[in-house]
């Protein structure tokens, strides 16, 4: 694997006095030292990274989070904020023996305004539970992702999670109205506004959205939720080449307009993998093999209007040759079956063996060129699988092999990052930097920008205890007790 970090000598190690203190604040149940539970908390979802923490804390309130952090900061104990542990870049697990602060016990819904749709809840609420709660009220969450059964809203916000509906509801930077966060020294920042508009001063909540727990621990979230519209239609389509996929996207944006709510793609390798490794799924278009599959979802308030619009668009697309075939889900069960195919790809990749996962933002017209170049480069050595949020210009490039093999890795990196950088793309569209890409930020951000990020990190977390070794490169962050790196003149 790529360069491994070295444990920061300035961090202390947990001792028995620390345990006594934590038990006093959190009670017996809030302090976890059993190996089995720690094993899970130390390992990421991909089973690619494993830490060696000996302690997990489960606070039940913002006050407890504040007390723990204040204590850890004074003792110089490094911590890892953890939610559902479904991250894909090794950002939610310890690298060494950092104390895990898991927010699962902070799972209360605090308030919901049925008129405005503003939901206020604690950071440990599981996304799927919020979706169910809102369903009863006639609303939905503005984001949806395959990990919804386990991921927590605090983690979603801290990583600025994207997902399947970003094309319709925008990113969390838009839908999060406020949040409450605790800084490294225990200071509680109450920015939990529920106002749609508030231009009073610098909007600091944006610093915590997407900074992956490195600037503070998010404890409460206030989010604007869209009303649940009754008419949802889903089409599973086939295209013969990537150019058709792009043209279909443009046509969908124009012809479907306001009712378009998702536009996803998967290539033939992704389809084959899912059908092979997951049970109970069948090919919606079994009559022939297709190179590209597209999922188009529309959400609106009038069933007849939406269905008519979608059918007219699809039939026109077939006539003009953009589509070669397709099926339309006739009920919710069929729609779920189609989504399971797209959402099941990460799981299928896990079952297939080792996977090198890349999440890139690229200009839509260039996106598949990278996939083909990668395929040409690796040949029979690996299965190059591509899928993603085509509507957002986000490619999930996955290279599947039976085992991890450094010789294959050298063919992939830094080629993928350099290619992306050359086309002014992002080396992490939505997964974040975490541990995996901690030293790769310069492929997508300028030196001056990264330096300012480091200054902000130093201001908010001078001891560097929050989620160390991640997000920003070690070259810009001073190790405590060492000289600061020389700044550019």
């Amino acid at each position: 694997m790529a360069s491994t970090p070295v444990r920061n000598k300035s961090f202390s190690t947990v001792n028995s006095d620390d345990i006594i203190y934590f038990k006093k604040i959190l009670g017996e149940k809030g302090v976890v030292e059993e190996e089995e539970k720690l094993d899970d908390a130390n390992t990421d979802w991909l089973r690619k990274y494993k830490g060696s923490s000996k302690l997990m804390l489960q606070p039940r309130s913002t006050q407890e989070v504040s007390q723990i952090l204040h204590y850890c900061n004074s003792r110089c104990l490094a911590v890892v904020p953890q939610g559902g542990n479904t991250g894909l870049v090794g950002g939610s697990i310890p690298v060494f023996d950092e104390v895990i602060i898991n927010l699962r016990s902070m799972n209360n819904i605090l308030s919901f305004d049925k008129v405005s749709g503003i939901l206020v809840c604690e950071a440990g609420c599981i996304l799927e539970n919020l979706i169910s709660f809102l369903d009863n009220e006639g609303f939905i969450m503005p984001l949806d992702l395959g990990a919804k059964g386990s991921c927590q809203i605090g983690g979603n916000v801290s990583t600025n999670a994207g997902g399947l509906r970003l094309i319709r509801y925008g990113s969390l930077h838009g839908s999060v109205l406020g949040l409450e966060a605790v800084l490294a020294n225990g200071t509680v920042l109450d920015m939990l506004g529920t106002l749609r508009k508030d231009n009073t001063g610098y909007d600091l909540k944006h610093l915590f959205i997407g900074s992956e727990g490195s600037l503070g621990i998010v404890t409460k979230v206030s989010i604007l939720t869209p009303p649940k519209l009754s008419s949802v239609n889903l089409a599973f389509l086939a295209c013969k080449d990537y150019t058709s996929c792009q043209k279909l996207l443009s046509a969908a944006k124009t012809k479907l307009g306001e009712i378009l709510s998702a536009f996803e793609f998967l290539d033939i390798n992704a389809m084959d993998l899912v059908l092979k490794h997951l049970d109970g799924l069948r090919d919606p278009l079994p009559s022939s093999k297709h190179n590209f599959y597209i999922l188009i979802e529309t959400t609106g308030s009038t069933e007849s209007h939406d269905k008519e619009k979608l059918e007219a668009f699809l039939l026109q697309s077939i006539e003009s040759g953009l589509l070669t075939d397709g099926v339309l889900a006739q009920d919710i069960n069929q729609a779920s079956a189609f989504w399971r195919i797209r959402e099941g790809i990460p799981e299928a990749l896990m079952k297939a063996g080792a996977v090198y996962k890349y999440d890139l933002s690229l200009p839509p017209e260039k996106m598949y060129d990278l996939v083909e170049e990668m395929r040409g480069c690796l040949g029979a050595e690996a299965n190059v699988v591509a899928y993603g949020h085509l509507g957002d210009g986000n490619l999930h490039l996955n290279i599947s092999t039976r085992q991890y093999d450094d010789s294959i890795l050298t063919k992939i990196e830094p080629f993928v990052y350099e290619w992306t950088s050359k086309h002014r793309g992002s080396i992490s569209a939505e997964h974040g930097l975490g541990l995996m890409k901690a030293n790769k930020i310069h492929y997508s951000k300028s030196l001056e920008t990264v330096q300012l990020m480091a200054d902000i990190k130093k201001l908010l977390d001078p001891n560097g205890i929050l989620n160390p070794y991640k997000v920003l490169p070690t070259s810009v962050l001073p190790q405590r007790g060492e000289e600061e790196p020389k700044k550019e003149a």
Partner: protein
Amino acid sequence: MGHLGWTDLWCVLIRPPNKASRLCTETASMRIMVAIKRVIDYAVKIRVKPDKSGVETSNVKMSMNPFCEIALEEALRIKESGRASEVVAVSVGPAQCVDTLRTGLAMGADRAIHVEFPGTLYPLSIAKILKALVDAEKPGLLLLGKQAIDDDCNQTGQMIAGLLKWPQGTFASKVVLDEENKVATVDREVDGGLETLCLDLPAVITTDLRLNQPRYASLPNIMKAKSKVIKKLTPQDLNIEIRSDLEVVQVTDPPKRKAGVILSSVDELIDKLKNEARVL
């Protein structure tokens, strides 16, 4: 003008004889009628109306009853195997039933009939309407779902078989047609296992979950469906008077399940079983 030459004989031989062919392809011209119902989508969370008069249906996703879908799929497969020539989908209900019939046409039904009636309908009324349609259309086979997921009545198939005096094979998990002997062999899922019946055609068959997996509506078929006919009728056209022998008095949620109690010792368990539950 002269005697028949070879070419004349050749022409006679290749022209298909009329009456004879009609006889041996009689079963292949069999029509299948499938009754389908528009219900609240299976995956929707049902909510009772505040006035307890029924369940909330406004702004709620409606779809074809899953068992009806299976019935239609079976009819299509029989037609595709050459044992039937036409599949007719029928539905009784309000104007929006047309949407469900369109889905049926998009799956592959040849034509559809909508008997429009906006009010509440119970199985006996449906059975009477279906009988009138069967008398008019003369299908060799009538397929229905075993029950609708909204009322779970499981009565219509049995009632119509009674009205028509046709044999019935309900809860079918397998259907095999023997066109030569004009019988259908039906495997039924019953409490004790599987029961196999042999029915003379015409017959009524109601479908169960494991009979087949319905196909998706493909875009080419959706396109073809737009030119297929949906005939509109009313119960009056069929000389049927819809009479409600039942009246729904109240609809309520089932009582909420009480939370269990976690006990701390076996002694406490025995005490509760003895003194509270009184089972010891």
